[in-house]
């Protein structure tokens, strides 16, 4: 059972300035969805953006403690368009 605040903090630490919204989708502490908005994503492909988020969570993904993380990644510019 993973604490969403811990996951959120890890992503924020790896991507300074990122806005992270995290939700436990099943209530079981192993399936989450996240929306990450970060200026670091500028110029990166979607695969590369997701890899940046997976990076700081590699250990819990490997052990299966984190079974699924549905991801949406945006640069601040992209996110301001999506929000409208």
């Amino acid at each position, binding site marked *: 059972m993973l604490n969403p605040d811990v996951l959120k903090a890890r992503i924020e630490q790896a991507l300074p300035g990122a806005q992270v919204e995290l939700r436990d989708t099943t209530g079981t502490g192993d399936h989450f969805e996240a929306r990450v908005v970060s200026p670091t994503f500028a110029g990166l492909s979607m695969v590369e953006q997701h*890899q940046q988020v997976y990076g700081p969570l590699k250990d819990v993904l490997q052990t299966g403690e984190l079974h699924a993380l549905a991801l*949406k990644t945006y640069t601040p510019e992209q996110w301001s368009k999506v929000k409208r």
Partner: protein
Amino acid sequence: MINDALKARFDKEISENPIVIYMKGSALFPQCGFSAKTVSLLQPLGKLYTVNVLAEPDVRDGIKAYSNWPTIPQVFIRGKFVGGCDIVTELAERGELEAMIKG
């Protein structure tokens, strides 16, 4: 972990088949919601070559190292790593998936 034989196998599968999915279960009987969704998005667009990672634990670990991607399913289109269920969904929503397959 990935050895040379496994890497050669992935290279071959990915270069010889336009749409490859490393997934849990088969296209007919997916054993995970994310794998099922990925199959359902790609199936109308062409012939799928799927590999059931649950049947082959070394493939399950190996493909993660091969593509530097920590989750299953994993999709390769025309020899290139595309991503997992989220990215395939996003590409389908943007209408870009079909163009990638047709090339």
